[in-house]
């Protein structure tokens, strides 16, 4: 069952002679429960793809469908609610709210919907990410690796259809990188979480079930490893 479909997706920046295609006719499908790594050199278009998949940005043309929702038809408010419920985003620089505790950062997507958390699921997520002892700490009191785990926990708390991770290990040392990848894999396996991971690190990409290589805005290789 396809959870993500991209059809002829283009993203063009600039106008006239300054036009530059960041994505050029991308066609892509991702099945539920897949762990996909998107690799490419800097400027190849992988972050643009992630922003479009996360409904943070819109394609110039083409169609993106996630869990049956056509992203091009969403207005700003609908896109926000879609992100909240269907997509979990993990960034290289964590993007945590510095004035909120770890617990409140994690529960933020639910709080935006005025929903109470499922205690069992919450405990499971924070337990599996190893941050159950730091729930009352502020982000500034955590190490980089711990902050990234909080970001992952936040992205998983709504059980999204798709988890999008943009260079989640880019700011971490080797040990912490290893742990973060293991946690993503664990969530993929134990929670059947679909993950699209953007990275330029081949070692990290090799942990995924499928590696898509992008160059100059085009998919030049799509290789399954399972």
């Amino acid at each position, binding site marked *: 069952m396809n959870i993500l479909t991209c059809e002829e997706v283009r993203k063009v920046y600039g106008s006239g002679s300054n036009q530059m295609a960041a994505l050029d006719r991308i066609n892509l499908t991702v099945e539920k429960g897949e762990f996909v790594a998107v690799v490419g050199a800097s400027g190849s278009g992988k972050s643009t793809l992630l922003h479009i998949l996360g409904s943070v940005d819109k394609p110039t043309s083409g169609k993106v469908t996630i869990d049956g929702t056509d992203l091009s038809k969403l207005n*700003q408010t609908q896109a926000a609610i879609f992100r909240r419920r269907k997509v979990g985003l993990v960034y290289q620089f964590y993007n945590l709210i510095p004035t909120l505790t770890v617990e409140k950062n994690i529960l933020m997507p639910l709080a935006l919907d005025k929903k109470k958390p499922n205690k069992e699921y919450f405990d499971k997520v924070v337990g599996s990410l190893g941050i159950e002892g730091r729930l009352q700490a502020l982000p500034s009191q955590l190490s980089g690796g711990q902050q990234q785990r909080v970001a992952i926990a936040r992205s998983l708390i709504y059980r999204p259809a798709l988890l999008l991770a943009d260079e989640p290990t880019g700011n971490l040392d080797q040990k912490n990188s290893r742990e973060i990848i293991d946690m993503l894999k664990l969530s993929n396996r134990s929670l059947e979480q679909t993950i699209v991971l953007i990275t330029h690190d081949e070692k990290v990409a090799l942990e995924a079930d499928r590696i898509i290589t992008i160059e100059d805005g085009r998919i030049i290789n799509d290789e399954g490893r399972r």
Partner: protein
Amino acid sequence: MWKDYSSGYIKNNRSSGMSVMIAAFISALLLSLLLGVFYNLWKYEIERIKEEEGGWQSRIVGELDKDDIAVIKSFANVKDVVINEKGTKEQEAMTDIYFDDMGDVLSDTPQIARMLGVSSEKIMYNHELLAMYMIRDPKDTAPRLIFPLFILITGIASLSLIIVIHNSFAVSMNARIHQFGIFSSIGATPKQIRSCLLQEAAALCILPVLAGNLSGILASMGLIHILNRLAEGMEGRHESVFGYHPLVLAASLLLTAVTIWISAWMPARKLSRLTPLEAIKNTGELQLKRRKKSPLLTCFFGMEGELAGSALKAQKKALRTASLSLLFSFLAFTIMQSFFTLSNISTRETYFERYQDVWDIMVTVKDTDVDSFNETEKIQGIPEIRSAIAYQRAEAKRIISEDEISEDMKSFGGFSQAGQQDVKETKGGWLVNAPVVILDDASFLAYCEQIGITPGLDGAVIWNQIRDVTNPDFRHPKYMPYVKGENSTSILRQSGNEEITAEIPVLCYTDKVPVLREEYATLDYYELVHFLPVSLWKEIKGQIGGCREDTFICMLARENVTLGELDALQGQVEGLIGGNYHTESENRIRKTEMNDKQIQGMMTIFGSFCVLLAVIGIGNVFSNTLGFVRQRKREFARYMSVGMTPEEIRKMFCIEALTIAVRPILITLPIAVVTVGYMLKASYMEAGEFLAEAPLIPVGVFMLAILGTVALAYYIGWRNMRRINLAEVLRDDTMM
């Protein structure tokens, strides 16, 4: 969650919260002050109307009997009915009606008239009073502008405040674009972000709004007190008693809330509409769209000057209010001070100093001719009075023949430059105005002695002087003989009917005038003034007529008289003649004081306006610098990371502060110099005379106050900025 987020933000960012709170406090203070003053002006106007016109709302003209009065009194909405004795004239009585609910006066009064069988033409409304309650009769076409004016000024004040304080909210909100980008990326809707920002603004502003409103009430109380003090003793003015109504407080709170809500809503709306990508990418740093150079700052201060110039250009929009407010406040203050100084010198020279030894007490005896005023001798008999001249002016005409004109006057063209309204050419010569000043006999005789002729009551003394009309400098006029002064008689003619004449002997032609508070030949340069004793005037009054309505008594007390003595003397004179005549009197020292008070009052009002403008500008500078830590920490961290020392950054701050504060001064000075130059030219005053009293101290104090407060704002910004941990800022974006 929002509550936690906002309270955490407020707690951890007191300085940027402080700028919002200050902005809210200032807005509440100003709006409350404005409404408090307006309410009191409105109240004062109603008191004035009631005092002058009466507090009736409608009135029926015509005879009404007791039964009619009873009918009116029994009307449901009627509170009281009063027969107006004062207004009764020519056998037409006036019945004043007071209503319980004034709002129905326009419908109830015609009904009452119908019940009484009185035609609607007999109804009168107190339009001026009703307009104060916004009750307008369509038939009343007079412009009643007090309410539209209040609403317009309040609206302008509210709009100005929105323009000024929205920036404080914008600085505080924009510093967190990145954080709201994160919220947006995890699914917060624009509405949720907007609501969060507005709730935050509300939480920050509640206390300042209440405090500002209370302070505004106190300030309006103080202002009314000051106005009362300044206007003390002013004719036709009653003491204003400060009052306040709960509705004014409610209106003030509502207006403040709306003003602050719009100010917060504008940046909140803008921020909530950013896409998450735009918001996350935003570092909140000052950006320049195009490269702009600051050659002067670079030339004077080197690299720090260039950086400061770029930063100021990047903040141009945020600092626009500050730039304009500071410029206009300083410009207005400088020009106002110069204008009042100049006006003060002019009034002093042309009035107070000129008449210093001319009068101490002036009494105007209303509707009385000098020949029928019988109290002159009594006044002259008061021991404390050095001299008292009773006089009256009358209009007359005279023909000046070609032969009579002096050689000096001929040399500048005779009557060739005279206007038709002053001089008419006739067969025998030129018909000119010949104002007659009629002096009591004793004073006339004294005048004769003063000018060195044999005192006599059988002729006139002619002031034989004419100004060089080719020289428009009224401050330093040149006089010359008007006529040759050979004629031993003068033929006066009735003004408007010049055929009727009276020939009077001329005792003397002179260049000296009696000691009176009068000006001669100021508007009509060609008038030939005749001084006559009252006994001679009685003989020709029938032919010449033209007397002005009032008689004046110009008195001099002993030298170096004090205000207390003059007040007592004034009271004594009034007591002596007040019973028999309708009089008005004034004394010189009190008039000087009143004049000073009026100028002070005007300067206080205009000065307050300038200070208010400056406060708005400085408030804007403060709101900007208090938001520095969030907005500019990356900029400064980057400077530091490339080796800029804290001292160099401090220098950059000083250059920015100096530029903001000095720019209005540099722009103002040439404009002020040109304006003052023009005013000096128009008033024929020497530059040295003005410079000796130039308002350098108040302008300097105002200038230093601007410099000082801008420096303080930047010092606070610098102090907050010093706490930056360079490594943290460059490494950790969660601080963003």
